[in-house]
């Protein structure tokens, strides 16, 4: 099979195909969308769905081929580069290529992105079938996949930034997909602007890196932003590694919705649910983690930056989990959960466990995408209802959705043997092993909360008494096949995905960690773990029991005793109020930043600075002065021709005067 492919396609072409197939899909669907704007579109839907799904599937197959090719490399590192397609920006002392690189990290990420992406495209074909903007939707989703794969496979930092901004754009377009609703359009704008803050920090880091690379004496005939070149000169980053790391991290904070720039992600749930699954759970939001792992050789130079990352990550992990407890919108619960889980990944990065972060990033994308797809299936079945208080008992009506959701929930809760167990365990164990006990404790508490909120969700939606209206409930049925199949495949991955990284205490070996570990300087230099396996086992078991208890508790309360939470919330009403209002973060931003800036711009800058001061004093004033002179008064006030003549007269006088000199 591979032989056949090799005979016809070069490796380079295959790598390019991974990226450009979705772009072709986007172009095709974009063209359909433009050509049929305002006309009957039903005819085109089959074609749109076919091409829209085919492109990601082929892209995934290409990545898969690459994967099997690269693991076949026996000697040397399993990586391949395309070389530059063309030189994009060339200046006198540097240049930026457009080229791709496949190595362990980007390959794993690309597998996940294209695989989950393909599944969600298929799911979307069912979910969005009745939407009138079907072609536009697929165009934007394909375009997203293009930019995401570009971000992942880029061989240099600036090209990665292109993907980085591109996914932000697609996120903006897809959040505001139903733009008739002002709230949704606003959510899109909010997401773009907050991401823009991060992008600017990213840019700042690029400029600082440029300064470093220029000073390092790297050959200006090669792309100095190339990851490999940068890695070779990594020592030169030491003097300003903290600044660069913190700027890059700020970019990641915005993209991956960490405190304090997390506010866009819950609002981003305004987009169609498959979009939330793909962009706002599985792929784009993890780009921040990916970028840092990719650039780990800069981050390890700055212990300070790493501790900042650890603190932000830990705080976000617990913050997101707390907010998910009191939220009632099914998608927003999952959004807060995503924020929290991303916090875990940054926590891992902060303590230097890059490959654990990457591991959790991959696993999380499986189960979180699945959770969203299940949520979408529920919303689809209930005709757009998103409030979990109006659901319940759905497992009898939609068993596949319910049981796949349960698998994902078990994975999120980190219960053996689901995938999330291994990845979360890897993070928490590393935190403990490296002596960050406080971080471990908070992560441990957060694990309990995660189990609780996800089973609260499961209990409220799928178990217990139905809370929806009787007619609605009666009509509920399982979703169409195109939606169910991706869910089942993702459920398999959520259940078994952890096997790629079984820790030593279970007699396995962390394939993924070892594979990616080659790329990570810190983990190369670290001596192989000789800490006691006993301690690891005990902690693991404790953590799992802790999570399991909370899972059962959450499920019990919300499936059986739904009046309890109300009573509890009444008892702790001040705390509850703060949680329900998300610690008032949005309100504080509005009050402290947005309103003052708009007020200042409108009333000070515009009115005073531009309208009164300069106009009044300088312009009208100067014309008054001219009026006093008298000669020019007519020019300032009378008709056009006089003006013109006078103007030339002055010019002539000056010229003559000067000639006389």
């Amino acid at each position: 099979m591979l032989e056949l492919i090799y005979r016809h396609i070069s490796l380079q072409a295959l790598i390019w195909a991974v990226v450009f197939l979705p772009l072709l899909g986007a172009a095709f669907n974009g063209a359909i969308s433009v050509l049929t704007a305002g006309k009957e579109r039903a005819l085109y839907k089959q074609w749109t769905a076919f091409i829209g799904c085919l492109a990601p599937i082929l892209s995934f197959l290409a990545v898969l081929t690459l994967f099997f090719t690269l693991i076949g490399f026996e000697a040397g590192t399993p990586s391949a580069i395309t070389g530059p397609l063309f030189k994009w920006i060339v200046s006198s002392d540097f240049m930026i290529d457009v080229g791709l690189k496949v190595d362990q990290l980007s390959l794993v990420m690309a597998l996940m992105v294209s695989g989950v992406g393909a599944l969600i495209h298929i799911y979307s074909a069912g979910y969005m079938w009745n939407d009138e903007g079907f072609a536009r939707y697929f165009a934007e989703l394909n375009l997203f996949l293009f930019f995401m794969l570009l971000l992942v496979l880029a061989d240099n930092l600036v090209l990665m930034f292109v993907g980085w901004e591109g996914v932000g754009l697609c996120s903006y377009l897809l959040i505001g997909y139903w733009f008739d609703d002002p709230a949704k359009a606003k959510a899109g704008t909010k997401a773009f602007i907050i991401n823009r803050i991060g992008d600017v920090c990213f840019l700042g880091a690029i400029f600082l890196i440029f300064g470093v690379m220029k000073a390092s004496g790297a050959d200006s005939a090669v792309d100095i932003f190339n990851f490999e070149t940068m890695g070779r000169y990594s020592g030169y980053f030491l003097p300003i590694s903290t600044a660069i790391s913190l700027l890059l991290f700020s970019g990641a904070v915005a993209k991956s919705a960490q405190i304090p720039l997390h506010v866009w992600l819950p609002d981003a749930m305004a987009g169609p649910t498959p979009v939330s699954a793909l962009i706002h759970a599985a792929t784009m939001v993890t780009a921040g983690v990916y970028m840092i792992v990719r650039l780990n050789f800069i981050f390890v130079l700055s212990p300070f930056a790493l501790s900042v990352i650890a603190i932000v990550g830990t705080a976000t992990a617990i913050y997101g989990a707390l907010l998910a407890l009191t939220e009632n919108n099914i998608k927003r619960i999952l959004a807060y959960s995503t924020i929290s889980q991303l916090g875990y990944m940054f926590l891992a990065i902060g303590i230097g466990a890059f490959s654990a972060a990457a591991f959790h990033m991959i696993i999380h994308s499986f189960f979180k995408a699945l959770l969203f797809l299940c949520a979408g299936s529920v919303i689809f079945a209930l005709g757009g209802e998103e409030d979990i208080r109006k659901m319940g008992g759905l497992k009898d009506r939609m068993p596949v959705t319910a049981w796949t959701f349960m698998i994902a929930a078990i994975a999120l809760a980190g219960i053996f043997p689901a995938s999330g167990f291994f990845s979360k365990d890897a993070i928490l164990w590393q935190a403990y092993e490296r002596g960050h006990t406080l971080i471990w404790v908070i992560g441990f508490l957060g694990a309990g909360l995660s189990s609780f909120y996800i089973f609260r969700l499961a209990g409220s939606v799928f178990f217990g008494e139905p809370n929806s209206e009787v007619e609605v409930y009666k009509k509920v049925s399982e979703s169409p096949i195109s939606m169910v199949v991706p869910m089942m495949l993702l459920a398999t991955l959520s259940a078994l995905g952890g096997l790629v990284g079984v820790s030593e205490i279970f007699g396995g070996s962390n394939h993924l960690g070892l594979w990616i570990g080659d790329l990570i300087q810190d983990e190369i230099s670290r001596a192989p773990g000789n800490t006691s396996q006993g301690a690891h086992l005990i902690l693991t078991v404790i953590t799992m029991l802790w999570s399991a208890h909370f899972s059962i508790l959450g499920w019990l309360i919300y499936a059986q005793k739904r009046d309890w939470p109300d009573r509890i919330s009444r008892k702790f009403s001040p705390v509850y109020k703060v949680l329900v209002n998300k610690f008032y973060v949005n309100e504080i931003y509005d009050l402290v930043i947005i309103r003052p800036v708009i007020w200042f711009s409108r009333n000070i800058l515009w009115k005073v600075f531009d309208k009164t001061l300069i106009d009044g004093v300088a312009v009208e004033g100067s014309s008054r002065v001219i009026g006093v002179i008298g000669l020019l008064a007519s020019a300032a006030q009378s008709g056009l021709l006089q003006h013109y003549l006078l103007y030339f007269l002055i010019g002539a006088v000056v010229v003559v005067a000067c000639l006389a000199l």
Partner: protein
Amino acid sequence: MALINSHILTSIIFLPLLGALILTVMPSRWKVEIRIISLVISILLIIATGVLFWIIDPSGEFDFIERVAWIPALGINYYLGVDGISLLMMLLVSFLLFISILVSWREIDKRVKGFHILLLVLATGMLGVFSSLDVFLFYVFWEFVLIPMYFIIGIWGGKDRFHAATKFIIYTVLGSLLMLVAMIYAAAQTGSFDLMSWYAHKFTASEQLWLFAAIAISFAIKIPLVPLCSWLPDSYSEAPTAGSILLAGILAKMGSYGLFRIAMPSFPLAVAKFSSFIIILALIGIIAGSLIAMVQDNLKRLIAYSSIPHMGFIVLGLFVVDTDAAGGAMLQMANHGITTAALFALIAMIYSRKKTMVIDEMGGGARSMPILAAVFILISLSAIGLPGLNNFAGEFLILLGAFQTQTVFAAIALIGVVLIAVYMLWVIQRIFFGKQKGGEAERVRDLGFREYMILIPCIALVVVIGLRPQFILSRLQKPAKVFVELTKRVEMIIPASEYENNR
């Protein structure tokens, strides 16, 4: 033919004037014919300047030189010559002339003949400004531009056109007078208006400061730089669309080009002295301009204000005196011209449908005119500086260069990058998204053929320059290098001791 070949620049510059002469003898009721002739001339100009830009040798030397003594007694020559940046600007002039004529096809229905004559005269002036190597000639062409523009605003403008035109001319007169006086003084010192002799001449420190200040103020008014920008919102928004396009697309670039070509390389000492001050003004323009644009209620004024931050980036790129940044600034002059022209054209299209420029009276436009909305979003993304679209390469180079020498200033400019996104996205949200305002259930017609003819070239340029800026950049590199060398030669011109004495 041989004559044209040896006087190719003259032929290009005076082709529109010839067209204007043809128009004068045509009866004014032949509106369509007048428009077609103007359009044909603009297309010829695009081809001619495009070919020159294609074949120019990117060595940084001036090419296609024509030099004839004009007033020998005063050292004034008819001296033309172009390098990559001048040709890029001439190409931009031709392109925006084409866009302006198409935009005015329906919009200008009164005194069509006069309008097109003025437009063509204006084109001659603009082309001349960008190809003069003699300062006096430059000045003559400079004036040649201002007067037709004054009439275009004053006659075909909006409700408040007279006020706007007056403001425009007052600023302009003040600036030009200062510039003229300074030029005459400098020429008296060097004995010639030849720009090359200005480059070579060693002006004393105090001369440099005064001459630079006088000349730069005139350029700063055109750009416009804070605090000389209060004419901008009135003129840009009262002018007819073609006028706005040329004001923002070309006249503003005449200012930055003047700084680049005349003021900065001739008076390097003054640049060294004033650069921080001017960069701060540019930064104020970037931040305050964006904030003021953000709170505008009128769409056209918003786009008008949005020029200030973009031009601020260009000024920043010039005054950090770095090869990368200067190359970026030059690329950005073209990019901003294209983007802002497309935006002005788009809002004119919106106006022709909605009959209003008030943002609050719009809304839901993406439902009634989906393609127009999509194009508007694309062009806005270009203005925001999305990578892969034209503005990114320029802004990237400017900021990259600025970061190396003026890190703090560059970091402040980065805030502007966010703010530009804020006002553009916010206005998109308000005019295109949400429920349709005004209860108009019937569909407004989407783009028509003529409008596609305007927008497709703009979109093509936005995308092509975004993907392959190299084609242009490679022709700008050497001019940028020369510019930086000339502008940085403080020590070469005056011994350090004398420099200290003069402080």
